[in-house]
């Protein structure tokens, strides 16, 4: 029961942080608050027992993401351009989507109930089978690396492609690069 309360509190803190991020116009302050958001979401994942996800969030959100935000801030201005125009169409769309989503809640099975569709199809097979078939204690690694090997391969390729994309956008051409090295030496 305590854990549920803790979850609720952390979710409230997340909402507060999100609103605060939205309100800031200084991009640097936004970056700071994004760091807090990532710390909070890692805590939330810990509370939900998603240890591996929390680990990823801890490693990526607190360290790399913040640094990359700062790196891109170096290319642009700090201040957000404020537009005071309120778009009626946008507001209506958002409200309608919100109503639809809230309506959709009725259909969602209860939180953590044993006969959820998620838990009745493959999870059984993974949980029972993995110790026999794969023999490593961490189920998440077994699923990611072995049962869903194709998925993970796809993810790795996505990361690799992202790196190539950034290089094509920001990387300097080879000649330039050589010149730089010589100048530094």
């Amino acid at each position, binding site marked *: 029961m305590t854990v549920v309360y803790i979850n609720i509190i952390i979710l409230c803190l997340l909402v507060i942080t999100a609103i605060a991020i939205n309100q800031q116009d200084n991009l640097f302050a936004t970056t700071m608050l994004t760091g807090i958001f990532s710390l909070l979401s890692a805590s939330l994942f810990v509370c939900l027992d998603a*240890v*591996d996800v*929390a*680990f*990823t969030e801890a*490693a*990526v959100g607190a*360290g*790399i993401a913040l*640094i*990359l935000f700062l*790196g*891109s801030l*170096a290319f642009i201005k700090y201040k957000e351009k404020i537009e005071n125009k309120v778009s009626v169409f946008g507001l209506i769309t958002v409200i309608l989507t919100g109503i639809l989503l809230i309506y959709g809640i009725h259909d969602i099975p209860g939180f953590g109930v044993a006969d959820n569709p998620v838990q009745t199809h493959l999870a059984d097979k993974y949980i029972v089978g993995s110790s026999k*078939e*794969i*023999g*490593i*204690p*961490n189920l*998440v*690694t*077994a699923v*990611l*690396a*072995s049962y869903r*090997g*194709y998925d*993970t*391969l796809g*993810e*790795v*390729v996505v*990361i*690799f492609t*992202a*790196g190539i994309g*950034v*290089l094509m*956008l*920001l*990387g*300097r051409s080879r000649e330039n*690069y050589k010149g*730089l*090295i010589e100048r*530094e030496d």
Partner: protein
Amino acid sequence: MEHHLVLRVVARIIIPLIMLFALYVQFHGDYGPGGGFQAGVIFASSFILYGIIFGIAKLRQVIHPSFVRSSAAFGVLIYVGVGIVTILNGGEFLNYNVLSQSAEAGQHIGIMIIEFGVGLTVASTMIILFFAFAKP
């Protein structure tokens, strides 16, 4: 940051620790939380700390950008290579059972190697991103 003596001394102490911790995460993904992805990010962040404190020029001397680029590709190659080896051994693509005599040992070996490939690619990509975003 040449005038930050304290930062530099602490960085010199802490960078090896971060690297070792990353490798620990890499190889204990079977037992606890962690695995290639997280380890790669942590490993890259130790290089990024070095780059931040001692300057990008020195980081470039330690690890050349073209080396990082090839190692990112090499990680993907390791992953796919395991799949091809399994095909050659008579199994399906990425079916690790055929890598060794017993199925379980084969799974162990396969998972360890592909996790290494994932870690290599992720770490290299993060360092590539840092190089790309850093102004020379």
